[in-house]
């Protein structure tokens, strides 16, 4: 059973979604308003999906969403009355997987959640890939920098510098990037 953290950010005391969700068979943990610390609640409740019911997403809501997406990403579905495409774009950018305007019917909840979760998974995969690519590029730059420093220090050519760094790394059972960092640190120390 899907565990849903439901955030009611509307003026109504009892949100419009809780009954529909419970009837559709979900486990619902509900919270009123966004005076709560959303990342902290996500950490504690460990929901599969976060649902935010809001008349119009405020700046505070967006900020909380950004924090969650950054630190403990979850599929986030936002139900709202706000039609403004600008707000919608901002919500998606903050990390909302599905932005649903009006019209909440119990029978539509399941497909909405399914789409949100699929979308979330593919976003996560893409993000991981981009992150790996960034990291790899950063490593390459550090290795290039170290190679340049070594070429100056040892007055040798590029290939020789690579070979020296690799030999050093291998005989110390390290990766090339580790030796590159040591060369950079040493060169900074010696100014």
């Amino acid at each position: 059973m899907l565990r849903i953290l439901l955030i009611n950010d509307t003026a109504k005391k009892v949100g419009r979604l809780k009954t529909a969700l419970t009837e559709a068979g979900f486990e619902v943990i509900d919270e009123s308003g966004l005076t709560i610390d959303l990342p902290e609640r996500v950490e504690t409740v460990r929901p599969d999906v976060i649902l935010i019911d809001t008349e119009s997403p405020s700046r505070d809501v967006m900020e909380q969403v950004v924090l969650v997406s950054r630190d403990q990403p979850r599929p986030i579905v936002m139900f709202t009355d706000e039609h403004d495409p600008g707000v919608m774009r901002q919500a998606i950018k903050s990390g909302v997987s599905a932005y649903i305007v009006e019209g909440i019917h119990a029978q539509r909840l399941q497909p909405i959640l399914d789409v949100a979760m699929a979308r979330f998974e593919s976003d996560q995969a893409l993000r991981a890939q981009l992150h790996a690519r960034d990291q790899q590029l950063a490593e390459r730059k550090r290795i290039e920098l170290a190679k340049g420093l070594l070429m100056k220090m040892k007055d040798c050519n590029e290939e020789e510098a690579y070979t020296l760094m690799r030999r050093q790394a291998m005989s110390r059972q390290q990766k090339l990037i580790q030796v590159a960092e040591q060369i950079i640190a040493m060169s900074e120390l010696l100014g």
Partner: protein
Amino acid sequence: MNEPSAGPLAWVNGSDAPEKTEISLGFMALSDCASVVVAATQGFAQPYGLTLNLKRQSSWANLRDKLVSGELDAAHSLYGLIYAVHLGIGGVAATDMAVLMGLNQNGQSINLSHGLQGLGVTGPEALHRHVHQTRPKLTFAQTFPTGTHAMWLYYWLASQGIHPLLEVDSVVVPPPQMVAHLQAGRIDGFCVGEPWSASAVQQDLGFTLATTQTIWPDHPEKVLGCTRAFVEQYPNTARALVMAILEASRFIEDSLENRRSTAQLLSAPQYLDAPLACIEPRLLGDYDDGLGNRWHDPHAMRFHGDGEVNLPYLSDGMWFMTQFRRWGLLRDDPDYLAVARQVQQLDLYREAASAVGVASLGKEMRSSQLIDGKVWNGSDPAGYARSFKLHAMSDNSPRLANC
């Protein structure tokens, strides 16, 4: 880095960029995983936009399962494992497989226990006598039922007049556990890759009876294997992977110092987790068989040989199928050449080789003479498979004249 530095950059930014940039790369703790480990840790893949994540496996069966399930993208693999899985005799449902390149030649060996040495069994003739006169049967370990070590063990025993399936027993033991099994007296001998033979000799538990290069000088051994689905889905990634590992292979053989530091890297806990003294000598070609004989081996383990080692010759792949047939693992002749053409990714290899300036001759076959005097050149695989005096073919088809 023999490439001009703009080369790989232009390549990675162009349309040939790898479709998948993070690769799970499986390996077993064996000296012949060197080029894979060096490529992954020494910055050979980054210029092509690849990150290689090494995953050590505990047994060949384990590695096979993860390769087939896709948990591993590619792996340091036994030639025979890839072909067996492809043909549906590898212990799992038939899956189309691919050999991207050869990783090494030579460097495995057959070893006997100290107990046998004590009985004077220190050479082929004495072993032959012992096997034919003594009960119970000796137990030999290899590393995978259709693997290279099984095939070398069978081939060597048969070349000495010992039927490997009838006159001795065989068991499967993962390479890093070989020495412990020998010590516990569960096996009398084994065929395995380094450093585990050298380790048995070093610990004074056994001696090296025959190196596999005496069976077939410059024999094919480990390959870079993956599923065919992987090559089809990620051709640019596969090509980049071959390029990175080719450059690492070339680097290892560039100088004696490079070979030495390779041995040091391999001895680390996360790779072979074995003492340098067990890894380095044989990696440099210096053998001590544990019986007082020392020599420098002209056909020691090699990783590159100007590309000779890395070209996935069709005849190399076919040879393993002929031995599967010979020992009854295959009940019928496969279409040797057609299967080898499907599995060996010759075109992809040639593109990768030329991109990093490694010669990839137009040849698809090579000719070699093996320990029993037979010549294998890939020209008549079915005839070759049934040309052996000792075999386990179940059919009654007429055999060739020299049986």
